[in-house]
């Protein structure tokens, strides 16, 4: 296996982006930041891969126009996934492993505010027995939340603690869309939105884009003193049938964890768009109590669709670059109630653990 590292990261997040859903306008300065961080031009990038969704944009092949932001003459080696940018990163990591390329830029973008996000996401459910009822993502998460509360696995106080910690940390994140710590009591006093979830238990609808830079071996060392070497990467999915899943846990998160070495992880950026889901992930990933979770504020502070998972990986990678941590985790999720989970373990030492 080649040593591949995350060596660049840039992001934009806002409540409502008033531009085109192609997001070219957001991506141009993001790529400029990546070039600034690496000293590269687009000619140094061996492979481009994006994550986005036509359903968010409301048009087919919506991702094609986004590549105007790259400058694609002469033609570039490019791919796309109708998924979060974290999976675009997985594809790029694989591409580099084949030896075909040594560097890659992956990016995600999405204008959730163009439609009704929680309704649009009903299209990812079983089209025969579920989508015709249009179960929104918030309702599904709420059903999961109540299962845990009724089962004594977590409670509203624990959920509020996740929120308070996240929004307090978000105060230091210039990209956060929602920020400001208060107190657990204050949070519990606020009204329900989707009983038992309150608005702050749910990630805010966010528009945005982000890009990550990958490089192999010496290409990475030339860019960063402390590259965030990917020492483990895994992705698993649970089935579509909601009833046969144990929603108080996440089988696929557990299987993803078993496929990598999470021992010694100091910082974990977890893509939990709902507060109780952070509690599920901590348990399924067996994170020790002293692991610092979502120092960025996490998705409860801002969660641009199809980008939020990639942002978790970028935020985690930064902690390796700046010397805050030697081993970190970036997690991404997709699908209803933590159905799909990707783990990206990064470390200052490329030989740390084994995958």
């Amino acid at each position, binding site marked *: 296996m080649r040593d591949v590292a995350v060596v660049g990261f840039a992001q934009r997040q806002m409540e409502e982006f008033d531009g085109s859903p192609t997001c070219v306008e957001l991506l141009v300065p993001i790529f400029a930041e990546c070039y600034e961080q690496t000293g590269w031009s687009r000619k140094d990038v061996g492979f481009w891969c994006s994550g986005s969704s036509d359903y968010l944009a409301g*048009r087919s092949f919506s991702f094609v126009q986004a590549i105007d932001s790259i400058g694609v003459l002469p033609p570039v080696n490019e791919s796309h996934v109708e998924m979060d940018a974290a999976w675009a990163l997985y594809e790029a990591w694989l591409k580099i492993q084949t030896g075909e390329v040594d560097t890659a830029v992956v990016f995600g973008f999405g204008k959730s505010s163009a439609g009704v996000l929680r309704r649009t996401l009903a299209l990812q459910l079983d089209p025969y027995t579920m989508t015709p009822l*249009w179960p929104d993502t918030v309702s599904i998460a709420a059903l999961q939340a109540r299962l845990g509360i009724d089962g004594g696995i977590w409670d509203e106080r624990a959920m509020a603690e996740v929120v308070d910690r996240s929004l307090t940390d978000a105060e230091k994140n210039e990209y956060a869309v929602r920020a400001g710590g208060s107190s657990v009591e204050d949070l519990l006093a606020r009204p329900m939105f989707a009983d038992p979830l309150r608005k702050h238990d749910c990630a805010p609808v966010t528009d945005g884009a982000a890009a990550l830079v990958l490089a192999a071996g010496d290409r990475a060392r030339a860019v960063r003193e402390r590259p965030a070497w990917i020492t483990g990467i895994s992705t698993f999915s649970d089935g579509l049938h909601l009833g046969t899943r144990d929603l108080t846990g996440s089988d696929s998160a557990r299987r993803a964890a078993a496929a990598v070495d999470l021992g010694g992880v100091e910082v974990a950026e977890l893509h939990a768009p709902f507060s109780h889901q952070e509690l599920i992930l901590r348990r399924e990933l067996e994170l020790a109590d002293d692991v610092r979770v979502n120092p960025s504020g996490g998705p409860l502070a801002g969660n641009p669709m199809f980008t939020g998972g990639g942002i978790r990986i970028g935020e985690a990678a930064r902690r390796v670059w700046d010397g805050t941590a030697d081993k970190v985790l970036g997690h991404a999720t997709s699908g209803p109630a933590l159905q799909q989970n990707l783990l990206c373990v990064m470390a200052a030492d490329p030989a740390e653990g084994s995958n």
Partner: protein
Amino acid sequence: MSRTLSAPVTVAFDYTRSVGPVLGRFFTGLQERRLVGARLADGRVVVPPPEFDPVSHEPATDFVDLPGTGTVTSWTWVSEPVKGQPFDRPFAFALVTPDGADVPMLHAVDVSSPEEMSTGMRVRARWAEEPQGGINDLTCFEPVGDSEAAPMVEVRGAPATSLETLVDEPVTGIITPVSLDYVYAASPEESAFFRGLAEGRILGQRCPACGKVYVPPRSACPVDGVPTAEEVELSDSGTVTTFCIVNVPFLGQKIQPPYVSAYVLLDGADIALQHLILEIPAEEVRMGLRVKAVWKPREEWSTTIENISHFAPTGEPDADYDTYRHHL
């Protein structure tokens, strides 16, 4: 004035889906006011029946008839319903474990406040007056009132469904309409283009790196990946670089075929604009034909390319191939 123009757009399609043998059994059952589940390899009875066992991956073949009563295993209050949900006023979504099943199914419960919902409450199916085929034939669940408390129906070795159905024709396909509403915003460059059209002007933008003029303008030059800020007003005359004679009628077509859809390279532009060619027999349209925009009456103008009704021949001699060979 807002930075960008926007307009509502709805994307809709009525998907028709064949259901196959497993879901067909389930949907036929709903029409007959029966809940049909399947027993999996591990003995669990699951509703709706999965087409393939999630553990053994074998097709489900062991079908089970269930009574339409059940227990709420989880619930939430939908305080702000979205379009298409079972009710257009606040209601409950719930996980309901039907009597005789081992896992829950997701559906709505018709109550008027969250105070009426509780985990463990008993509910029964409410069936559609006129079944259409599909999950909505089970309209929702409703609470079983105290006065008519239905005890938990003990279903021992739940009866297997009979091979013969009571309806004349089993369900083989369902229609699942999808309709999504968006507010579509143009980019600042496209907005400038449309605002220009409202004034009878065609505006392009020039890339500072390669000098090419794009119309409609794009947020970045696709060659160089840099924003194209310099505005360039273009002539409304140009050259046909390529064209297509549309003969085939299709859904949503606005013009009667045959008609000509063409790429017109406006004088001053580096990429061609797509529009209609009229006032010339279709078979006479050719590459190099010189054409000019025919605008609708000014009072009909808005921020739209439709201000130009079509392009018509100017009568000039055809443009030299060299003038457009690099724009094909």
